[in-house]
């Protein structure tokens, strides 16, 4: 199946359980994560104007307007919206910045709020009917954020401790005997400057990617198995509806589970960002 065939198209292809012989075709990575561009920019390394843009714009509008409208008229006695915003800020402050950076971390609280809001909105687009595409399942978006944190991590460390001290603290772990340094330093360099930002972005991307794939699979399976007018008779038609119901139940359960994962992944990304910045602030340890 080609890259430009969507899940819906797959279900509309007419293949059903107990049907006329054609088997189940699982939704492909191409069909799910490489939507056909509406406008091709015609440049190397570009995706063109795809559904990701649309969904990202929606996520951007939701995240920005949520913050704008909940804090626009911040009062001493909060309204509903402001209470939610405060809950988020309070949670991130107490669970993330204060535990990793202490009181000094309060100045990075707006950044953490932004990260959480943006990531959660991008994630949750995966279960919004009609959009159903988590923006973070496209590695470009987690990469932006992880790279931003990676640069900020270096900037904070260098501004606090100087270039030498920052890189020394990152490359030479304390208490390691000198003769082992030739081995340790390359490992540390690889670990801190390559693997860590990479895992930071891939962790978020991969969970969203896998979650979306799973939901798409359940949906497609439900469509495939739903065949009440089976040519093999009404009994098989009833069985197919039963199977389809199981798939639907699985879809609903995993949708709820995905919502939880989306929040957790946003939290994890923010927590890791905060830990990295805290480490840079702390210097050598």
């Amino acid at each position, binding site marked *: 199946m080609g890259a430009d065939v969507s899940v819906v198209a797959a279900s509309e292809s007419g293949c059903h359980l107990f049907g006329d012989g054609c088997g189940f075709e699982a939704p492909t990575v191409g069909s799910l994560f490489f939507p056909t561009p509406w406008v091709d920019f015609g440049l190397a*390394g570009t995706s063109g104007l795809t559904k990701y843009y649309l969904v*990202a714009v929606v996520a951007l509008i939701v995240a920005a307007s949520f913050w704008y409208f909940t804090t626009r008229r*911040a009062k001493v006695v909060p309204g509903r919206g402001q209470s939610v915003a405060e809950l988020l800020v309070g949670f991130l402050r107490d669970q993330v910045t204060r535990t990793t950076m202490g009181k000094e971390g309060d100045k990075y609280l707006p950044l953490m709020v*932004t990260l959480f*809001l943006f990531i959660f909105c991008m994630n949750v687009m995966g279960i919004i009917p009609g959009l159903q595409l988590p923006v973070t399942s496209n590695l*470009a*978006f987690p990469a932006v954020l992880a790279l931003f944190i990676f640069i900020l991590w270096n900037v904070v460390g260098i501004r606090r401790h100087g270039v030498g001290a920052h890189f020394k603290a990152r490359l030479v772990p304390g208490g390691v005997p000198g003769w082992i340094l030739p081995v340790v330093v390359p490992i540390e360099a690889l670990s801190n400057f390559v693997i860590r930002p990479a895992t930071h972005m891939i962790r978020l991307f991969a969970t969203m990617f896998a979650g979306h794939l799973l939901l798409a699979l359940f949906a497609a399976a439900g469509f495939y198995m739903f065949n009440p007018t089976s040519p093999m008779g009404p009994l098989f038609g009833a069985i197919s509806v039963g199977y389809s119901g199981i798939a639907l139940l699985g879809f609903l359960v995993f949708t709820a589970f995905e919502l939880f994962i989306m929040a957790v992944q946003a939290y994890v990304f923010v927590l890791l960002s905060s830990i990295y910045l805290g480490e840079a602030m702390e210097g050598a340890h």
Partner: protein
Amino acid sequence: MPTVYLAAEENVLRIHWDEFTFGLIAFLIILGVVYKMWPRLTKALDERADQIEGGIARAQKAEAEADEIRQQYREKLEEAHREYAQELEKAKEQRAAIIAEAREEAQVEARRIIDAAHAQIEADRQQAFVQLKGEIGTLSTELASRIVGESLSDSAAQNRVIDRFLDELEQSEGKQQAEVR
């Protein structure tokens, strides 16, 4: 989309730089909104913290003041009780003193009145005695002159004269007694 392209396109770890740039712009927009609105929220939070802390401080102050005032009242009340007891004691003493004094004064007064009465009675008696003495003399001379003036031969007349004298005497004595009273 050309099929040759497909294998490269379907690398899930691809990062298209246009999407990357768009993601960066979106992130910076949200970051800008959050930073722009941040002071409003923190201002409200700080104000609330201030108000709560102020409220607690005020409550503590009010409680301390109330304690102090209660202590003062208690002390005042105790003092008042003590003063009252003292006053009562004093009043009792004073009452006893006043009663004793009054009794003494009354006794003195009574004695004085009795003495005055005695003196008055004595004086009256003396006066009556003097008056009586004078009148007896007068009456005696009058009687004697009458006796001499009347015929001494007539014994009946004599008796009459004497009787009349005695009557007059009695009358004058009754008058005198009434005067004394």
